[in-house]
């Protein structure tokens, strides 16, 4: 399957295009079906890719020339981390497409196209090993989401989209500068202009500019994740997005930042990373505690989940910057678990909003009798988010803390206390929505539970439980590919 | 005029350009401002011709042809705007009256 990797990028894009075109004629459900078929095909591709294994860490490879004059190629390489995240992307994508029929009535085709285009872009980010191509996907994956936000967002969408745009694109610019600097340094040293990740990675570590260049990458990824102090776009954006966009943003787009930190910061600049690790670990711990603290003060359900999401991403920072293998693999596990659990929480919040008409917890309460199954799921995912053992999130938290413990005892101790604060806001949220006497909205009949929602949440539950009790297969799978020259047999120059 | 010595041509081009520029800055009549812009374009074109002659390169003439095309397009657009303004009921050609597009 030579073309499996480019197909992973092209398939959702063209599938989305087909969905958009199919909207012009035919019944209203056609775009939806086209999208589902696209995702099913993508799942088949991934199954096939998971089965093939070659190379230490790097499992698949594709290269073709693009702009030969500037040394830009279309290069895709897949290692264990990419594979795990591609699966996560698919798992998050399916419910967003599956559950959108209810609230998208106008222009469903366009909606499907934008969702799938985002997914294509994210796939591209996880696969590209040409830095220029990576940058293109990095910028492209957000454009469709801006559209989704602007067309289907909530009341305050214009301001929020602008904020989101400024933060993410602005930080992307810094990354572009860093990429160009790397390419120029390499061209200066070797006389060859190339954007090949593996070649540039060899240069990156030795340059005296390495800390500065790394900072460009780091800020872009920190904004996207987001981590303190670049997080301010995120609660607004999550709150004003339609459910599907919230799920995508929290579930998978934040992981692109974390992925970038592993691939383009920790792996490329080991010594500079070690230098900045104390600062990053401090920021990670402050993020965990500070955002857990802010989460308890919010009234908007989605904002609570948004802040809790930033808080949990702090563990990923701890893991990546601990510089240990257990920390890095824990970070990958945390990405998967966080994607599933936060995505599920947003789906539940979206459902509650759809049925009661509000996200304001001051007006919610006592929903348990009205929606027992959803309450049970909400309880489960709340437990996941407060790091209950047996659920995937705990594995991630434990392993990242184990990694961080080897760097700083105090920071890890404080981070472990994040578990206490997270139980405060998570249980407060449960209490305010589901416990207590039923209030006005809750006392109305809220309608039958929606079977697709329950199915999606059920699948997420099972996956998180499996991840929590038996994470070893994912750990074995998610070994990052090495940058060591021996492993580069796959990364030969493309035929020009 | 010695084709290898473009000084004179450049000087004429500069004078023409300054005349055009001053025309744009001083005249308030839109038609005259358009004419001044044409003069500036032609000044630039003349400079290209002179430079092309100096270095025996065809590029100068290519640029000249392109500038003629630009000038034609510019005149067409500019006049079209003037006509639209007239059709929209503006009774004057004074450029200073059209200042609604400001910060």
């Amino acid at each position, binding site marked *: 399957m030579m073309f499996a990797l480019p197909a992973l990028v092209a398939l959702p894009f063209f599938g989305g295009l087909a969905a958009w075109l199919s909207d012009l004629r035919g019944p209203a459900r056609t775009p939806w079906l086209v999208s589902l078929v696209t995702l099913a095909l993508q799942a088949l591709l991934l199954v096939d890719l998971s089965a093939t294994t070659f190379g230490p860490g790097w499992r698949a490879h594709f290269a073709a020339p693009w702009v030969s004059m500037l040394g830009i190629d279309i290069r895709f390489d897949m290692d264990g981390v990419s594979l795990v995240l591609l699966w996560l992307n698919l798992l998050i994508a399916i419910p967003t497409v599956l559950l959108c029929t209810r609230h998208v009535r106008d222009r469903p085709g366009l909606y499907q196209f934008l969702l799938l285009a985002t997914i294509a872009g994210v796939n591209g980010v996880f696969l590209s090993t040409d830095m220029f191509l990576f940058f293109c996907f990095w910028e492209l994956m957000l454009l469709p989401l801006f559209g989704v936000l602007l067309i289907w967002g909530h009341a305050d969408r214009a301001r929020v989209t602008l904020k989101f745009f400024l933060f993410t694109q602005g930080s992307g610019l810094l990354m572009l500068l860093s990429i160009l600097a790397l390419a120029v340094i390499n061209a200066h040293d070797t006389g060859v202009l190339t954007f090949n990740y593996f070649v540039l990675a060899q240069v990156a570590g030795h340059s005296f500019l390495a800390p500065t260049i790394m900072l460009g990458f780091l800020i872009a990824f920190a904004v996207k994740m987001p981590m303190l102090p670049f997080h301010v776009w995120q609660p607004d954006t999550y709150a004003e997005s339609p459910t599907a966009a919230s799920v995508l943003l929290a579930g998978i787009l934040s992981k692109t930042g974390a992925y970038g930190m592993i691939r383009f910061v920790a792996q490329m600049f080991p010594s500079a990373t070690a230098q900045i690790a104390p600062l990053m670990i401090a920021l990670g711990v402050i993020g965990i505690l500070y955002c857990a603290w802010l989460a308890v003060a919010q009234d908007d359900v989605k904002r609570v989940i948004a802040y809790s999401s930033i808080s949990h991403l702090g563990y990923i920072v701890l893991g990546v910057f601990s510089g240990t293998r257990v920390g890095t693999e824990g970070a990958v596990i945390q990405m998967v678990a966080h994607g599933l659990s936060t995505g599920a929480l947003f789906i539940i919040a979206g459902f509650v909003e759809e049925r009661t008409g509000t996200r304001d917890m001051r007006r919610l309460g006592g929903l348990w009798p009205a929606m027992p199954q959803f309450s049970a799921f909400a309880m489960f995912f709340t437990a996941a988010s407060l790091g209950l053992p*047996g659920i995937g999130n705990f594995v991630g938290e434990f392993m990242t803390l184990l990694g961080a413990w080897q760097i700083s005892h105090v920071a890890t101790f404080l981070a472990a206390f994040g578990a*206490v604060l997270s139980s405060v806001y998570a249980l407060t949220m449960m209490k305010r929505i589901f*416990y*207590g006497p039923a209030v006005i909205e809750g006392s109305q009949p809220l309608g039958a539970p929606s079977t697709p929602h329950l199915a999606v949440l059920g699948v997420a539950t099972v996956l998180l439980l499996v991840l929590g009790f038996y994470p070893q297969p994912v750990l074995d799978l998610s070994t990052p590919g090495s940058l060591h020259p021996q492993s580069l047999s796959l990364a030969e120059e493309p035929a020009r | 005029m010695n084709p290898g010595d473009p000084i004179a041509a450049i000087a004429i081009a500069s004078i023409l350009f300054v005349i055009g520029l001053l025309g744009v800055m001083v005249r308030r009549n839109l038609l005259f401002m358009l004419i001044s812009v044409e003069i500036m374009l032609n000044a630039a074109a003349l400079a290209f011709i002179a430079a092309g002659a100096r270095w025996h390169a065809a590029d100068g003439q290519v640029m000249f042809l392109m500038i003629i095309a630009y000038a034609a397009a510019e005149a067409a657009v500019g006049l079209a705007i003037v006509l639209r303004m007239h059709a929209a009921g503006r009774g004057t050609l004074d450029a200073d009256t059209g200042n609604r597009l400001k910060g």
Partner: protein
Amino acid sequence: MAALLPLIILCPLAVAVILLLSRGTMPARATCGLVGVGMGLCALFGVIEAVTFLNGPDSTGALHVVLWHWIHVGGFDTSFALTLDRLSLVMMLVVSCIGFLILVYACSYMRDDPDIARFFVYMNLFVASMLLLVLSSDMIAVYFGWEGVGVCSYLLIGFWYHETPNANAARKAFVVTRIGDALFLVALLLLATGVGSLDFNAVIQAAPHAPHAAITLATLLLLGGAVAKSAQLPLQTWLPDAMAGPTPVSALIHAATMVTAGVYLIARLHAVFLLTPGVMLLCAVIGFVTILFAAGSALVQTDIKRVLAYSTMSQLGYMYMALGCGAWQGAMFHLVTHAFFKALLFMAAGSIILRVHHEQDIFKMGGLRQEMPGVFWAFIAGSAALAGLPLITAGYFSKEMILTSAYNVAPLFWLGGILGAFLTSIYIFRCVFITFWGEARTHAHGRTGIVQAVPLAILGVLAIIGGWMEVPDSLGSVHIFSNLLSPVLGELPEEHGGAVLLLIGSIVPLIGVSLAWMLWKPTGRAPEALDQPLVRVLRADWGFDALYDVVFVRPYLALGRLNRNDFIDRLYDLLASVTQFFGRAFGLMQTGQVRRYAAWIAVGTVLALCLAV
């Protein structure tokens, strides 16, 4: 019988999963039947396992079953493995057998609740988690069980979700114990990086060679975790509120099993704790203070369940004092007898509450002796055991075992224990005399069914005779229990002063009961002075609740509220304002006059050319 060991955990788990998947569609009788069969099998397997183990070839060693590897990365290896030795055998029997009795009782207690299926999902999950906790040989799996019982406790305290106080109590219980859980987690990190494994045996073997500071820190953190779980000072505030849950929950979780998890953990790691005498002393002091603290609070409660809650705290204090004094056997013995009589007391209280229309205030009961004689005798048996009435109760023997050991470590601890025993006999018989004697202030309806009566009877018998498996030398020298545990916990040390201490320990509870009779006898009872400042403070947890509220909870919430819009976001807004300001300033140049623009362009070009040349 290695294959049976996982089944013991699997039985309640399977019941929970089946009930969960049935989504409440199963009728109440079928639910109860399923629960009875599941827990019955669990208890049966437990007993079979225990008998075969004790008669097996390696009855002093341990039976290991490795289920699967949890994570194995970078030299760190941890797995889900079960181990059965004599210590976990005792705990496993307590959890499965008493769990079985309480769940049977609960079938009757919760019969009319529409949500009975959900109740039993939580209860069975709890039993499974607790069994995982006591049977694991790896501390990470212990932590799974540890947190699992915590979350089940949360769910069960908040079981009646339509009342906000229940939700608050549940949240409080979880958050306070979570503090201990976080400490436990840090201890795990410390041990995992130091030892490279979280297996109990590996930890115990590595401990003597590890740096002393690290071991001290680890034991301190573990003690913190245990203290929160067992509601000892200073993390005790959650337990009285936890009584918001249904009464069988209080019997199972907040008396017999979950709260004793910390005792089990410390006993399991006693070899490590022995290396750090300072931490052991701290443990004993915590226990000592909690005994008196909780007994004082229990004296003035009016809610029958809160009396029992404080008494649980106080009895756990005895166990911690015993652990701190190195009396591992005594702590475990008291754990077992306490499980008997406290579960009995809670279930008897539950039967009372059920029959007096969910009234829990003892001053609104009275005279129930005639109306419910069976429950009365059960409650008396439990109270006698709790008070430690000499010779005829289980509590007497276990308490004396602890007090003798404490006397051999420090007479002050013994004195505290005796004082605690005195207060215990007063408060519990105060409760008895007010509830069962005097004029009836309420009318009991219905009957206590056979399903409730049988567990009460069994536990009642155990609360009386359960102590005879360990009788001190001066009274006849029976050592079944300590011989059972000595392969794991070591031989009993030689102890002195037995007979005199026993005599004092026998007399003190009798004085206490007599005093209680004089104070709260049916006729001529002095009115309760519930409004006195001292009594108010005692009732309100000695002010701890209010203190924590003022020092931690309110500032945390208020400051969070103040900063809810995130001051960092405001900083970025500042940036936006600056940009806007400059935008306006430069906007002034944009006059809208084309000629002006042309002039600016010309000036700019000239300047640029000048700079370039």
